[in-house]
């Protein structure tokens, strides 16, 4: 079983280390510039006081940004050799994965905090319906957490951070666009492929609809990816 204390210690360390390196700030800056630019460049054209178009950007942007955030979590440890020290401390694989996972999710959440000012700005411009905004941020956290889990799995596979990033990005990207490609897929499988598309579920939540199927999807994705990471590091021993 994961010992809660250990998870907290590992989480604290990883989270702090994120903000020591300048990479964190660069990534956050890139994220904010991209989302801000794409959202506001068409905002006045739509002339709607809503953040729908902001949230719809997130799946694609997260597909790149989140694997970049998680790529170092295992890969760097393999490289430096500190992984050997970590594993031989009285912690379980579950502690390690959980601690790193929560650190990544916390980072993604912090990365989104500045975007709250978009919501505030829009609220000044018109009648903002806060329901979908709340749903959108909830969905964004779930989406960020799911992609973090995938990114952690990718990082656990290799000591090369770039490869970890690429693998993570490919998987996240595939999950995002799969329901856009339904046109090309056999008819009998349509329902299945639509169901595994992250964007499909995210869209629902970002409309403010909390459907248990969507929440279940994200939690399943998190569980599967973290379990895969667990198997990976077990195999490495």
């Amino acid at each position, binding site marked *: 079983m994961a010992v809660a204390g250990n998870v907290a210690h590992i989480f604290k360390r990883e989270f702090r280390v994120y903000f020591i390196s300048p990479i964190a700030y660069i990534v956050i800056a890139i994220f904010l510039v991209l989302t801000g630019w794409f959202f506001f460049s068409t905002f006045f054209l739509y002339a709607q006081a809503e953040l729908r178009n902001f949230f719809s950007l997130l799946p694609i942007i997260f597909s790149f940004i989140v694997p970049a955030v998680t790529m170092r979590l295992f890969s760097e440890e393999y490289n430096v050799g500190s992984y050997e020290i970590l594993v*031989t*401390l*009285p912690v*379980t694989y579950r502690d390690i994965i959980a601690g790193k996972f929560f650190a990544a999710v916390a980072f993604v959440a912090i990365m989104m905090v500045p975007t709250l000012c978009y919501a505030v700005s829009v609220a000044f411009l018109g009648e903002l319906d806060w329901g979908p905004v709340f749903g959108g941020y909830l969905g964004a956290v779930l989406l960020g957490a799911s992609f973090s889990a995938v990114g952690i799995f990718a990082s656990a596979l290799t000591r090369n951070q770039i490869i970890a990033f690429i693998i993570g990005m490919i998987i996240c990207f595939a999950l995002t666009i799969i329901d856009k490609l339904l046109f090309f897929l056999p008819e009998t499988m349509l329902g299945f492929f639509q169901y595994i598309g992250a964007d499909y579920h995210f869209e629902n939540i970002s409309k403010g609809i909390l459907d248990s199927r969507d929440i279940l999807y994200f939690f399943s994705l998190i569980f599967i990816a973290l379990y895969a990471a667990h198997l990976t590091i077990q195999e490495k*021993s």
Partner: protein
Amino acid sequence: MIELSDLTKYYGELCALDHINLTIEKGKILGLLGPNGAGKTTALRIITGYLRPTSGTVTAKGLSIDRDALAIKRMIGYLPESAPLYHDMLVYDYLHYVADIRDLGDNGKNQRIRELVDICGLRGVMHRSINELSKGYKQRVGLAHAMMSDPEILILDEPTSGLDPNQIVEIRGIIKKIGSEKTVILSTHILSEVEATCDRVVIINRGKIVADGSTLDLKKESQSEYSLNISLRGGEVDAVRGALSLVEGVSEVQQTGSEDGARSFKLLCHTSEDIREQVYRKIKEQDWVLLEFSQEMKSFEKIFRELTRE
């Protein structure tokens, strides 16, 4: 205390450990000696739970590494080769992190860290980032990390590798001090280190144990082969050779030098008996002047080379 039973580890096709059986008792310093690639690090990594064996078992105090890994890890303090610590942390933060994971509690933590700073000599570097430290200091931080929970078993993989002679002496001093109370396993390929620090030596070569015993015992075992160094005046080389080769047990007489009319010889003796008296009598018979007479035990280095030759 620690028992390795039929321990085998394959990396793909390569056999790193070949059915190793070893019992490690409490309270001694054990040296794992072997050439590079012999399997020392692999063995230590399996004991500490970093790697899983292909077959065989490791038990510590009755607990098995595959079922009770967590309990065993609590008993062990491990310093891997080259002290691979987190580069991006300050020494202070790092020690606190390890103390937290070792469940030391706030009060215990501060006190223990203070003690370790004294023992390992880290006073001046607590505020420095680990990647700024020299190798010697990194090793000391690693040692502090390994000793944080005052573990019963301390496992050190090449603890003095890459250190300068002063640092080596310091680290050895620390190890000897700890070793007087705890069980220490250290691996090395430096012979003098084993002779200087360890109570017991296990020599590993290509995944197998080729020798096991206290350093004194291993030397005694080689008593069936030793050399006598003598220096004579008055005898011609051939005459000396002829006469001394007759002594039973002397297998070869080599001339090793000559100066000021005196010639020195090395007698290779292949016998477990002490034949110094016979050699002396032979020399006396010939009325040569004996200037030097000493016995040379087979050096540890020779034993090692023979056991680990390709």
